[in-house]
């Protein structure tokens, strides 16, 4: 039997379908971090460059504890400018999936809760439904912000911009079959 893959190999496996180069070719120039609107704004605890260095060094626990990928705004600036052709935005998605699959998500972070609610909703109905999605992270906000959000939601609803009932797509069964093929999570209904 093959040896248990290292953390670095596991992440490479997560990225296998990405069009970018492997993480090993990173030369630590910091272009990704300096172009990143979130990292250069100081929101990420580790810059994307550091995350790649940590993966290459096998620092699994520190990577999993990091908030970096949950803060990724998916603007793909890093991917476009990376001089070594690494698909860094795809890496961020890969790390999100990895932590969710391995149930390693951090407590008290909006990202994992939000993502999970979103994905479950899509799997169930085929469409996003904002009133449920919003409440999934609404309670992590402070009281004034919550009231403000509620006000916005009310006015949106009055103008007919926010549906009262969740919509469903036609032929949901077919859609679920598709999902079953592409998401290695087993039966979405389970």
């Amino acid at each position: 039997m093959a040896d248990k893959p290292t953390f670095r190999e596991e992440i490479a496996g997560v990225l296998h379908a990405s069009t970018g180069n492997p993480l090993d070719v990173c030369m630590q120039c910091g272009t990704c971090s300096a172009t990143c609107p979130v990292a250069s704004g100081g929101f990420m605890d580790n810059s994307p460059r550091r995350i790649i260095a940590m993966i290459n060094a096998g620092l699994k626990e520190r990577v999993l504890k990091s908030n970096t990928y949950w803060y990724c705004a998916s603007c793909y600036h890093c991917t476009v400018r990376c001089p070594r052709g690494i698909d860094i935005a795809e890496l961020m998605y890969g790390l999100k999936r990895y932590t969710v699959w391995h149930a390693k998500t951090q407590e008290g972070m909006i990202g994992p809760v939000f993502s999970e609610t979103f994905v479950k909703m899509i799997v169930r109905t085929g469409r996003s439904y904002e009133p449920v999605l919003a409440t999934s992270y609404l309670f992590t906000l402070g009281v004034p912000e919550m009231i403000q959000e509620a006000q916005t939601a009310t006015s949106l609803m009055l103008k007919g911009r926010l549906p009262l009932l969740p919509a469903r797509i036609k032929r949901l069964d077919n859609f679920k079959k598709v999902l079953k093929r592409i998401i290695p999570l087993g039966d979405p209904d389970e």
Partner: protein
Amino acid sequence: MSNRIGVYVCHCGTNIASMVDCKAVAEYAATLPGVALSRDYKYMCSDPGQTLIQQDIKEHKLDRIIVSACSPLLHEHTFRNATRQGGINEFFFQMVNIREHDAWVHTDRAKATEKAKDLIRAAVHRVPFHKPLEKKTVPIKPDVLIVGGGIAGIHAALTLANAGKKVYLVERDATIGGHMAKFDKTFPTLDCAACILTPKMSTVKTHPNITMWTYSDVTKVEGFVGNYKVTVRRNPRYIIEELCVGCSECVEACVFKEPKFPDEFNLGLGKRKPVFLPFPQATPLVAVIDPETCIQLKTGKCKKTCVEACGDRKAIDFSQKAEEKEIEVGTIILSTGFKIFDAKRIPYYGYGTYSNVFTALDIERLVNASGPTGGELVLRNGQKPKSVAIVHCVGSRDENTNKYCSRVCCMYSLKLAHLVKERTGAEVYNFYIDMRTPGKGFEEFYSKVSGEGVHMIRGKVADVFLENPADKSGRMIVQAEDTLLNIMRKVPVDMVVLGVGLEAQADANDVRRQFNISCSTEGWFLERHPKLAPVNTFTDGIFLAGCCQGPKDIPDTVAQAGAAAAEALALIDAGSVELEPNTAFVVEQECSGCKTCIPMCPYTAISRNEDKKIAVINEALCKGCGTCVAACPSGAIKQNLFEDDEIFEEINGVLAHV
């Protein structure tokens, strides 16, 4: 006819022996028909190995020799010599490659051994059809053409001319000197570039053995090693070179009172008139008239004050036409140089958009005493910068532009950091990915510049933006991650200097075709061997020098130019060169004169004999590619060493057990 074949199986130390059972292969070969002797030996290329072949030929009356060892590229020559010294024609020898084609690429020893047997069997089938051939010799003409008058071309020209050879130096620009003439100082010694270059330039001008043609292009190259026929077009500069003394009086007298056209030599940072001298030490020191801007040449209606000023010298000739010169040379050195990376290709660095973003070559001109500001390093508004960012790796080490390292940028960026600090006292920030200073005295220079208080920030610049978006000539913010401190840096600066990389010339591919040599994917001319034939090309008699082969600094360029000159000298002094006899030939009775082969030949070696109405192959031009052999509809073209019998028997041999 029965042959007496000798087969030798080389172990190549353990290179072959570790994957092929050489002893078993030799024993097998002995059983093949026609094989009189079969041996395995540790190093066939060694002196005893070669002696073995010679002795066996005599003692065992061998008439065909097969050595199965490495690639023919490496030792075919060696074993052919041994065969000849043994007393038989060297083309009775055949080499079998069981190293690169077998031992090195397989992992199963038993199967690799079988493959070695197959390959040797193919050769055993082939060699009886070998014919005795003679190498042809052709004389080498002693004159040399050098294309490109930068420091590489200049150095090669002087070396050859000093050895008494006649040199034609052809340069596209109005002056020789190339990029080096534009530099201010050279790293790491901080020698003044002009002080070390201009004496060589004027020696080129006055050297009796050098014919210098500036403002000229090579338009046609025909022939082969030792016998090239080259056409050079001398473009009209509208000044008679022999009569002009470079006094500049025509420039003073031009109807344009003020210079108003962008000056190419100063990269558009300064202005010139329609008639101008590129720079004070231009060689030849002869004015040029630009037909695009000169009123007389554009409209024919000018007061021609320049002609008046020239007076009795009568050096101005508005009716000058391009002139074609035909020369015959034996060898050619290409030193066509490089172009700098176009920084506009990276829009987020703001070159061409923000007025105070410059390339490193722009800065070379700005700090140069003969430059547009007289050596004052200033912003566009004429003020001295208080802070300057130098960005490394612009257009280098980047999959989006060029993947390779341009090799000189780290050092010239450090040099510019030193010069900027010295001339303006500004704060200088060098943004680098890796500092590459591997030359003699380079690391010491890095250390010296660091000690001068230049800031070194390890991180590639990801963005340059304006502090006030409305003011395109205002201060800029340079953003990078300081990867050592692990923080984001947003450094406000007055001036940004882009350390642009080196690229192959835009027309490198045309030049490559013209001279029939190869290019790498990046456009750099390809050397024959990266280590052991760095200045040779795949075309005999054509050599490379300087940056046309790849980015390099001045010391390396000069060393390479010297090497290219030495290679040319070696050919010239040998007087003649031997050609491989693997050429194609026409069987006259069978040729129908259909001319199919003529346009197919990549070396223009085939012509038609109009009297006999058949194709004729020039053996000296033929490189033995076999295209015509395959193309001939009547099977009238054959190729030495690759005749049908030889090839079909080889195939029969390799497939004999299938």
